[in-house]
């Protein structure tokens, strides 16, 4: 693929962007346009495929090919598109309800197959388009229109689900940090295989501040840690604190004693980082949890077709129909 240089403007469509003012989706859209402009893929080879929900209106605002699908099915549609033409750069945009509730089956199977898709899951812990019902990532106890006395559902941990499904690239970013979104998406684009990126997103109308304990600038420094390949596990305003994993436990240490993060490791450390979400005393992890190299589904399908075609010769319809056991009459 020749190196193509685009500007974010090239990736804007002529459609007016219509999310609620203050919605986290705007920042994600801008950062995505900035990232995709730099991945070296021409516009016509980029395809954005979405499901249903606020986030799924994303394709209309992108100046490339786009397919706004049906609820939960974006990953399946995208699997067909990518497998039919592996030359395309195919991005799935979905939300927590779309991907993890109605589309849960497609999501886990797409990840285990390692289809070379980039899946961006906007997690706002709420159903926004239908105006505020609890979602499969809402914390237990959340009061919504359908859980007026608090939700009794226990939520998914999206990162754990992705890791457990065998996704080869698993990352998390947040709508309040466009630079981090961009670098995360660039890493996802560079990964050959499925990339699952959870994006903490604020729904200003129906679940405002769901992430505020971790997502504001100050909170980020103290309460999140950025997992970056080859970088030490440090956090804090001045990166003064560090994490060390020993005996399956995570302990806070001085920055100098922190472990160095390696998302390519076969050791189950990514799961440990995902479980930080359940710890009040430890930072929640952002960044790249896992980055493994495995054969991709779309390439494997194509390889079989190519190999069999090379071995048997291009299929001849007449020979397929006129078989040896045919007989002649008259």
């Amino acid at each position: 693929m020749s190196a193509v240089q685009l500007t974010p403007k090239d990736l804007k469509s002529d459609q007016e962007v219509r999310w609620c003012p203050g919605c986290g989706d705007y920042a994600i859209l801008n950062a995505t346009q900035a990232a995709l402009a730099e991945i070296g893929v021409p516009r016509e080879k980029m395809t954005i495929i979405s499901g249903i929900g606020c986030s799924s209106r994303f394709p209309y605002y992108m100046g490339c090919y786009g397919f706004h699908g049906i609820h939960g099915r974006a990953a399946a549609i995208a699997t067909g598109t990518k497998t039919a033409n592996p030359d395309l750069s195919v991005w799935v945009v979905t939300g927590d309800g779309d991907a993890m509730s109605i589309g849960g089956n497609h999501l886990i199977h797409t990840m285990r197959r390692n289809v070379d898709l980039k899946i961006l899951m906007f997690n706002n812990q709420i159903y926004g388009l239908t105006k505020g019902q609890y979602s499969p990532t809402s914390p237990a106890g959340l009061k919504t229109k359908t859980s007026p006395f608090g939700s009794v559902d226990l939520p998914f941990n999206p990162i754990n689900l992705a890791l457990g499904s065998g996704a080869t690239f698993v990352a998390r970013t947040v709508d309040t940090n466009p630079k981090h979104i961009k670098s995360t998406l660039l890493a996802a684009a560079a990964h050959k295989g499925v990339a699952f990126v959870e994006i903490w997103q604020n729904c200003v109308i129906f679940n405002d501040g769901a992430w505020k304990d971790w997502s504001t600038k100050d909170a980020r420094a103290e309460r999140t840690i950025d997992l970056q390949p080859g970088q030490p596990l440090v956090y804090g305003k001045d990166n003064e604190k560090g994490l060390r994993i020993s005996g399956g436990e995570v302990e806070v240490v001085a920055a100098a004693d922190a472990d160095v993060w390696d998302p390519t490791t076969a050791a189950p450390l990514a799961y440990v980082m995902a479980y930080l979400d359940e710890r009040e005393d430890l930072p929640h992890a952002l960044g790249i949890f896992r980055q493994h190299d495995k054969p991709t589904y779309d390439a494997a399908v194509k390889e079989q077709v190519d190999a069999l075609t090379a071995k048997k010769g291009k299929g001849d319809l007449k020979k397929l129909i006129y078989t040896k056991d045919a007989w002649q009459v008259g």
Partner: protein
Amino acid sequence: MSIAVTRQDDVVIRFAGDSGDGMQITGNQFTDTTALVGNDLATFPDFPAEIRAPAGTRAGVSGFQIRFSSTDIYTAGDIPDVLVAMNAAALIVNYKDVAPGGIIIANTGNFTERDLQKAKLATNPLEDGTLDGYRVIAIDINARVTEALAGSPLTSKDVLRCKNFYVLGLMYWLYSRPLEPTLEWLAAKFAKKQDLADANRTALRAGYNSGDIHEVFQGRYEVVPVENALPGTYRNIMGNHAVALGLVAGAELAGLKLFLGSYPITPATDILQHLAELKEFGVITCQMEDEIAGICTAIGASYAGMLGCTTTSGPGLALKTEAIGLAIMTELPLVIVDVQRAGPSTGLPTKVEQADLLQSLFGRNSDAPLPIIACATPADAFDCAVEACRIAVQYMTPVILLSDNYIANGAEPWRLPEMDKLPHFPAAQVTDPAGYAPYARDGKLARPWAVPGTPGLEHRIGGLEKEHITGNVSHNPENHQLMSELRRDKVLGVRDTIPTPEVSGPREADLLVVGWGSTYGAIRSGTERLRRERNVSVAHLHLRHLWPLANGLDEIFARYKQILVPELNMGQLSRLLQGEYPDHRFLHYGKVKGKPFTAREIREKITAVLEGKS
């Protein structure tokens, strides 16, 4: 000693045994050999409902019926002339269907006390008078096979598993068929297992020779080849296989590569299996996580420029419903194959019914029209699959192709198409940005197909209502009305490219029998015979296109005093026709027993209607 050979024109044999007895293989071998002899034929496999019903029980009985003839035939026959019963359960389940005076060959080796118990029989039907009036040939096939294979390195259990080839040999002798095709098949099948190949060959020959040696039969029969068969090249084909070949051909005739997104479901799975073999045709098959993913990948592949296709049966079609609506809204080509089976919910998965017509027509939210075609016979399934591809590509629309269990697993000789006479319908994928609009329309009202990867045509589609021409999302009331009408009219426009079907029989008559799908054979042979033998004033109209209905049907209906619509359902085509042609009266004749119509049932119904008794 020579045994007289009598000529017969038309024979029906039913092989029945335990699921483990290899009756389907026996039936298929007899079928392939019979095809090579040059008879016309039709088959009807009857699988047990339970996968592993206990051996020897009635629930575990597997059957295979073949009818072969010196003349053209349309069905697998109503009444077996010969029943081969490999055990007591197979006998008791099947003997009542046999023609009076017909031959019943029973394997006495499997009529022990225990076998009778498993078949829930208090007394042995071979001895208690049950079979009075039949010509019973009782042979201990277990013992004969064991004798024939004395000295074989196989275990005694494996030796007994060769008994189906012994029976096959015996039937080859009885109907004067050559052994060579099966001997060759065995050699290829067991190329790496010489012991098995040898044992089955020996069993086959022993069965054949026993006809001469043991004088169990008073005579042999022969069924000579069809004389006036249409000249051409023929092969034997089953319906699911024909659909697979038709889809490959259809894609090639459209200049596209085929993509199949599917999920295993009885009785459609064979299509996925056949297509998975054909990688060298560029066919991509994806076995997905569920029915919905099956169709959604196909839609995604069509979006990317392949010919997307999905295969399923009724319950799967129900699951695909919403995605079909998406394909209608995004106006992408897509072929949906529904191999119908019996009953709502899981129903009777291995039995036949044609009750998904109304689901195909109306089973979606809102007004969501699409073309529907149905195949009549296994060979017709090839042409119908090609036709489904043509309509999908030319009209940028999903198309439902209806087959059913009877067609899927039934076989018949297929007169192969002349390759240069197959229709060509190259898909027009646009590349020129000048004047491009995603929802502009051509003379057929089809929108242009612009696939990702084409520079300058970047656009967005989706399930939200589209603005006419631009394809932008639109909530405009007038636009929704217009787009709904355009979707309807586009599909109705398909009738401009389909022929008015031809009536078989008199141009005007007392009764017209209208059918669709796999009832074709029973209706055709029932009506022909009534005309031939009793000069009954009856004609047959078969509908391949169920939506839109062809032009000219109204004029046809007007020429007949009464119209009868037999269907394997509770009234679906009859309801459709009654709504579309309210000036005529359509009399429904339904059957929902998981079994096809017999020609006799059709004849009796016609007679009753004409006598004013129904």
